[in-house]
């Protein structure tokens, strides 16, 4: 077996006594889509925020391509090629789409000043892939619709040649056409060998796009399974009851067999 692109082992984090993530281990192979599932508040966003450098885990280890990775800030994560679409989108509302997409990684001219024209041009290209109707390049992101804002957040994550992409409910605000477009995008990126963690509550989307699912409940891992080995009902059982089916690898959070 080849080395995984990402391995998170025994990850735990607590917020003032609440164990948001408790001894969770997940991994991701190149060109693979792993869906993270679980009820609201299960700890999915918190887990991936540890990978993206927003939080530092209290315990556990992250490996990228087999090497122990010390990820303390979002800058560190980006250095490892980890890009993230946050559930909250994390956009600066008062500046335009291009400024958001290039935030922290601006294109500058020979004199070190911002090259807004070049950034707008790149923005137009990447947005054309996601949302061909998008025209409001000059306006602050505040003026955009929820779906348009989400497109900007996705554009920011895919523009910088990520090796590892984290998508936290990337299509929650999108219309059917735009959602389909993101589905296509996921397949394209997968074909390029990019590994993707996908968080979604849409079980059909998950079975359509993901190779494996990892299910969390109350901050603990119920189990991990190939989507080809389990049924949708079995996965729903994992999410709701924490019941781990035969075909899945059991996690510490699985319900004890009766």
């Amino acid at each position, binding site marked *: 077996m080849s080395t995984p692109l990402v391995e998170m082992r025994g990850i735990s984090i607590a917020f003032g006594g609440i164990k948001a993530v408790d001894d969770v281990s997940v991994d991701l192979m190149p060109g693979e889509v792993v869906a993270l599932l679980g009820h609201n508040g299960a700890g999915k966003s918190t887990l991936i925020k540890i990978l*993206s450098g*927003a939080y530092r885990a209290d315990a556990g280890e992250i490996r990228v391509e087999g090497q122990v990775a010390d990820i303390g*800030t*979002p*800058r560190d994560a*980006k250095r490892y090629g980890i890009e*993230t679409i*946050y559930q*909250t*989108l*994390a*956009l*600066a*509302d*008062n*500046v335009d789409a291009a*400024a*958001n997409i290039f*935030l*922290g*990684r*601006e294109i*500058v001219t020979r004199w*070190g*000043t*911002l090259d807004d*024209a*070049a950034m*707008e*041009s790149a923005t137009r290209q990447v947005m054309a892939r996601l949302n061909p109707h998008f025209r409001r390049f000059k306006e602050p992101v505040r003026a955009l619709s929820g779906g348009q804002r989400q497109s900007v957040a996705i554009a*920011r994550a895919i523009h910088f040649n990520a090796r590892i992409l984290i998508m936290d409910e990337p299509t929650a605000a999108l219309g059917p056409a735009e959602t389909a477009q993101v589905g296509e995008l996921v397949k394209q990126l997968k074909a390029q060998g990019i590994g993707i963690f996908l968080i979604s509550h849409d079980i059909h989307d998950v079975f359509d796009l993901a190779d494996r699912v990892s299910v969390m409940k109350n901050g603990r891992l119920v189990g991990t399974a190939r989507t080809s080995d389990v049924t949708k009902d079995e996965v729903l059982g994992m999410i709701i009851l924490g019941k781990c089916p035969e075909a899945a690898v059991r996690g510490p959070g699985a319900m004890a067999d009766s």
Partner: protein
Amino acid sequence: MRHLEVDPRLVGMLGALAVIWVGFDLLSGGAFLTPRNLWNLSVQTASIAVMACGMVLVIVTRNIDLSVGAMLGFIGMVVGVVQARWLPEVIGLEHPATAFIAVAVGVALGGVIGLMQGSLIAYLGIPSFIVTLGGLLVWRGAAWWVTQGQTVAPMDGRFRMLGGGIEGAIGATASWVLAALACAAIVAGMVMLRRRRLAFGFPVRPGWAEGVLMGLACLVVIGAVAVANSYPIPVGVARRMAEAQGIAWPPGGLFIAHGLAIPVIVALMVGVAMTVLATRTRFGRYVFAIGGNPEAAELSGVNTRRSLMMVFGLMGALVGLSACIATARLNAATNAAGTLDELYVIAAAVIGGTSLAGGMGTVAGAMLGALVMQSLQSGMVLLGVDTPLQNIVVGLVLVFAVWLDGAWRKRIR
């Protein structure tokens, strides 16, 4: 109007300024819109305007700096002691380097104080309101401590040029040269920007609109210089200057113009530099992003703490420069210098359209705001309004301006 694509708020500010100027001129029987009054107005505005440029960035990041007035007092005292007591003993009285050393000390000291306060705010997470409120008390006290309350005077001759006055103006010819350079820069800048947008195939303003804007901008520059150049220096001084240069004193007298004042040129250069910093550099972009959504900026990989500390460092350095201008203008360093300046600086930024909620503001707006405040004040002085009433009016105008701005912003949403 739509084709010009100019910021409507800036137009509104200019309109308000025009109303104030014309209003005072009518009320004072034509004493306001004279070269002499406008020239003095420009010099009086310089110190606050320089600090307002820094305050914009501070407020844009959702912070505040209440310590600038006290810092100005303290730095002014140090700058005064350095040039009037220390340097004369080391390098001699009226040494050519004195002014440069004094200004460098002022700016550096301001920068260090700013970075210190900024690091408490950014790295220890103490609210800026508290840190700079503490700073207000500390630096005002320190200003007294430097000389146990004694006033230091006089200042170095070259240093005094920073404060304006007759020696602190650059004369007619140099002013016209500056105006020509400024106009050339405006035209070149606009043409370059347009070319660049066209090269990428982006929409641009129609050609005529671009021309109108260029023309207006150049007209403002030329107008300002024309006013400064029609304010003559007093006859006695002109006569001495003529004699010194061996020019015979003609029977009708000689017209020697002030030209632009050095503090005004300094303030304008600071304004241009800060505008470039705020709108054309990564640092400026980060400052606005932090103001819009600090968490998003952090998650995007911006070093928000470092940026925040730098904003306060920059604010401090500008206070240092203002301290030099104020001390030079007074030709003395007193520990009360800069009292209440923090409020005028914040008011200037806010009147200039800086949102206290963060993420919004322009340097040009803040400088205009400073000019509006100073116009109100010197207009009332001209009308013989006494100080308490002046404060009441300025206070009411501040509240009214912010209400108007908020109402306007809601309407355009």
